[in-house]
């Protein structure tokens, strides 16, 4: 099967949806102010952005669309002050998401859903960079006779086991979001002739 290339109309749509995706992500990221909920952030983002992404995937059934959206989002996060870890992590995630979408020939809901679930883990990179800088973190928190059990309590919060949980939560959140998105597609957008 011959794949179509992205045309200008699709590129413009990607730009527009990146803005919507990012704004929705940011609004749902407000809960991340509270430290414990910070870890639940990717899951919440998955649920809220499900509608946007499922409409986006239904609109552009062509290769590279999803990965361009993800990489631009990572670039925005980088420009707002983050480390290069986010960008590298996102590129790896996007390759997997793109391959999954290709397998479903960009049309099947099942593969689009799986692709979105993988896609949604890109913002775990923001937490990952904190986990990778853990030694630095201990050094700073431990600088002045900090109580020992407090530091270990901190470590229990940001460790690799919890990070795996964050990834799983992100995937589950995305699947819920994808089903909500499917519901909305049927209820509103197909009738309005947007898709």
């Amino acid at each position, binding site marked *: 099967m011959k794949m179509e290339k*992205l045309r*200008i*109309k699709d*590129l*413009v*749509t*990607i*730009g*527009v*949806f*990146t*803005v*919507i995706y990012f*704004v*929705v992500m940011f609004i749902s990221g407000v809960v991340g*102010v*509270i*430290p*414990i909920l910070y870890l639940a952030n990717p899951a919440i983002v998955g649920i*809220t952005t499900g*509608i*946007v992404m499922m*409409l986006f995937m239904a*609109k552009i059934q062509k290769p*590279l669309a999803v990965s*361009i*959206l993800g*990489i*631009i989002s990572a*670039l925005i996060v*980088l*420009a*707002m*002050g*983050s*480390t*290069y*870890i986010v960008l590298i992590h996102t590129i790896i995630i996007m390759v997997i998401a793109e391959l999954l979408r290709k397998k479903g020939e960009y049309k099947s809901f099942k593969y689009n859903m799986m692709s979105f679930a993988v896609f949604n883990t890109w913002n775990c990179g923001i937490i990952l*960079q*904190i986990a*990778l*800088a853990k030694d*630095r*973190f201990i*050094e*700073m*928190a431990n*600088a*002045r*006779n*900090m*109580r020992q059990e*407090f530091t270990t*309590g*901190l470590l229990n919060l940001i460790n690799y086991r919890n990070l795996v949980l964050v990834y799983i939560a992100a995937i589950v959140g995305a699947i819920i979001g994808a089903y909500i998105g499917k519901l*909305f597609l049927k209820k*509103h*957008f197909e009738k*309005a002739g*947007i898709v």
Partner: protein
Amino acid sequence: MPAFQDNPYNPNPITKMCIIILLGFTVFHQVNIYFEWGIILLISFLFYKNGLKKEALKNAAFFAAFSCIVPNIGIIKNMNSFIMMFFIVFVICRMIYLPYSAGKFFIRTSDVGSIISSMDKIKVPQNISIPIAVMFRFFPSFKEEWKNIKMAMKIRGITIKTPFSYMEYVIVPLLVVSSNIADDIAKAAETRCIESPVKKTRYISVKIKTIDFLYVILILVMIIGGVLW
């Protein structure tokens, strides 16, 4: 909008992006506090020279506050753990402050034209540069639509008390309207021959100035010096 491009103290967007990536290293490696102050003061100086005096002051003041609070965080060890949780946020803020402040410098002092023409210069593929250009064009109309939808909902008496239907009533019209706007932008772009393969000329051209070299070299010296100290 101030004329940033003509200012000899304004590095080009490529340089600023590189600096953000470079400062990412400071999150993972311990950099001596004096060198960190050096980086912060350099960024403040650039803010000041670009006419953002308030930002320059804020930048230094926040860093001073964070570097005072974080080493003394042991004081709060007798408080309960919930308050401590909030203090962790301070530690995290302190950790990512350097890239954050470089990012702020990038956002506040770069305008759309120079970002787009600098993307041309380093030959970013069209697949990425067009969506970024569209984002800058779309964001104001997005804000306007958002306001209109909120007003319409206020008239109908839909409030945030019912979060699920609230979300539905915001996001559905927003997506429908945005899809239509996307079509309009695509038509407008195509009538202006965006797809023609010739080399495009830009209104604003990006030049490499002395400040670009100075900025990169000073930051590099301070990071390397700070790590080796």
